[in-house]
């Protein structure tokens, strides 16, 4: 079979290293539209494509049916055999020019207006709530994979990829930024959907600060930086199943979050603290965050878009 012909995309440019492989900008030959190609090489043994890959990609396809406004569209999936032992699975996503990182960089001084931040947060949490209610966690949320269209629409990208790639990651040395990682991941404790809320809290702060909140250089350094803000958790709060001892960290008291994010109002600060809660079980959920006073108040036209939200 001529597989070249069945792959109607021509590469235009490399748009990012990404932790899991190169991402290409490409053009759909038929429609002329730009797409983002993400490929993963999967070991295919004698049982064909691994179950995990089949299930995870099928899950992404299922999410696609909901057509959620705050989630990037998955337009196409291709499986092409490279060698006997390797199959390349290419995911074709809609291409959005801009991510939150560049969006923040481009914002004129003194940064984004508070209402804009509120709107971005609403959309971000809306997309996240949708993923979480479908039992998908992002696990690697950061400004680089939060896309912002020219109309200001937020679209989450790269969710669920972590699991597709995880079985094959041993092959490539992965450099993932630590800055948005929650304490439970840094401590190698068990984790679930609250990881994304932590990252969202960090990103929330970054929208005001226009620079990251916690810039650790190692996992321990990252934890140290976190405790400088939220204080060292009590002995009871420290997870039981971790090897890293609480004694390694200096006893620190929590400092007011407004010391680090000065431009924020009281309700925003309150929500941020609920997101940056050490104990994942006590951390606010995406759906509850959407109900929070900070995001609730005025009924802007944006709520129309959000009413389509979580199925």
């Amino acid at each position, binding site marked *: 079979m001529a597989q070249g012909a069945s792959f109607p995309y021509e590469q235009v440019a490399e748009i990012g290293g990404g932790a899991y492989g190169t991402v290409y900008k490409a053009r759909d030959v038929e429609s002329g539209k730009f797409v983002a190609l993400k490929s993963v090489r999967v070991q295919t043994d*004698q*049982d064909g494509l691994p179950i995990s890959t089949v299930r995870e990609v099928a899950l*992404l396809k299922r999410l696609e049916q909901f057509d959620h406004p705050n989630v990037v569209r998955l337009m196409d999936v291709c*499986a092409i055999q490279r060698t006997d032992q390797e199959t390349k699975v290419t995911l074709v996503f809609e291409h959005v020019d801009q991510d939150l990182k560049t969006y923040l960089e481009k914002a004129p001084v003194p940064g984004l207006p508070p209402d804009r931040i509120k709107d971005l947060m609403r959309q971000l949490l809306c997309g996240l709530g949708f993923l979480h209610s479908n039992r998908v966690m992002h696990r690697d949320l950061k400004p680089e994979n939060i896309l912002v269209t020219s109309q200001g629409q937020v679209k989450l990208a790269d969710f669920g990829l972590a699991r597709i790639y995880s079985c094959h990651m041993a092959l490539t040395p992965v450099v993932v930024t630590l800055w948005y990682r929650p304490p439970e991941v840094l401590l190698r404790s068990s984790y679930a959907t609250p990881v994304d809320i932590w990252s969202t809290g960090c990103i929330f702060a970054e929208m005001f600060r226009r620079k990251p909140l916690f810039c650790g250089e190692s996992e321990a350094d990252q934890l140290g930086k976190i405790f400088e803000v939220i204080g060292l958790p009590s002995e009871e709060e420290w997870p039981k199943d971790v090897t890293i001892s609480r004694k390694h960290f200096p006893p620190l008291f929590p400092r007011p979050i407004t010391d680090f994010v000065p431009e924020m109002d009281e309700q925003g600060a309150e929500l941020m603290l609920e997101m940056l809660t050490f104990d994942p079980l006590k951390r606010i959920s995406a759906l509850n965050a959407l109900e929070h006073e900070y995001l609730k108040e005025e009924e802007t036209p944006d709520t129309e878009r959000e009413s389509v939200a979580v199925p």
Partner: protein
Amino acid sequence: MAKTGFCEAKPLLDLHKKAEERRPPLRTWANACGPKDRRHPQEGAEPRRSQKVEPECRWERRLPVSIKDGIITGYYENVGLLNECSDKAMLLYHHGFQGLHSLLRHEVEKAMEKLDLTWDRACAWDMFEHMIRNQYRNTFLSAELPRPFTDATRTVLVDWLIQVHEMLHFQDETLYLAINLMNRGLRQIKVSTANLQLLGVVCLFLAAKKEECLLPEVSELCYLMDNGYTKRQLLRMERKVLSGLQFDLSHCPPLHFLLLTASIARCSAKVVWMARYLLELSLLEGQCVVYLPMQLAGAVLCLARRVLQEPPTPDGDTAWCIASSIHIGSETALLRIMHILAGAAAKAHCRENRATFVKYSSALTMHVSSHPVLQNALCLLALPPLHT
């Protein structure tokens, strides 16, 4: 939903032999398209994408999907299907739509939880709404198959897959998913007649990858096809199917609607087995692909109740009334499905493709397929046989 396919690793070949003892040889299909055919695959024969649409089906598709009022189009309004409890229905209607809706919602949530279709009762109704919306994706506009495939070849393949599925001790969901993938594959992927069996087996393999915990080895699958294809060919077909179907393996099996409705309607075990038998027969009928899973489930339950004629109880009637307020669709569609399946059940025992008949004649399934009334099932509908 996916439970362990086998409890222990049983040698497949033994199962195969046992199965062969009690029913016609499994590999008839493989024998039918001999190795000569396979060496010269007719790749040129391009499947024709059918544009022709039966007006009736198109209408079915355009049914409102709005859940709030859409699913409460109980066919009591359409009258006549079930006279015996129409008084009860009137009673419910007196309480008004709102009452029936909240009653139904409560029952659906309970049943979803009981059947393990939801992980959280709070999400149950949302999940149910999603099932309803999603089922439109699993039906086809037309029953017509691209050339050179015919309903007859399809039926032979489905019958064989039902046997393989049973031998491998897979879940029923896996079978429904496999046949759905195959129906889509037949229409969306270019396959030659010689590779038809390969397509079928790959669909079953992929369905198992989605639903099952334990998978057969590729070599075992090749053995089941008389080694008429190599492992390499099978894996190539796997990639072709996955790409062709865009990795879209989501399917809402009609079986879930059946079990859900039966649970709400408090149907007896025998009615449920009978309905499951009839539903599985629908897999063999090419014409059934145009109907919604919910319609199929509703129709087989109605038919099963008519066949078994269990004495009515007040509680049972009320429960049935609540359950039947779910069914989407016209009475015409339901009657038509009942008609097709009554015809299929009547001749199931003497057909060449009788894997389902044999499966449901066992004690485990309460011998439903050999129920005497089934042979005259069409008389129950008081209609002449369909012209097919």
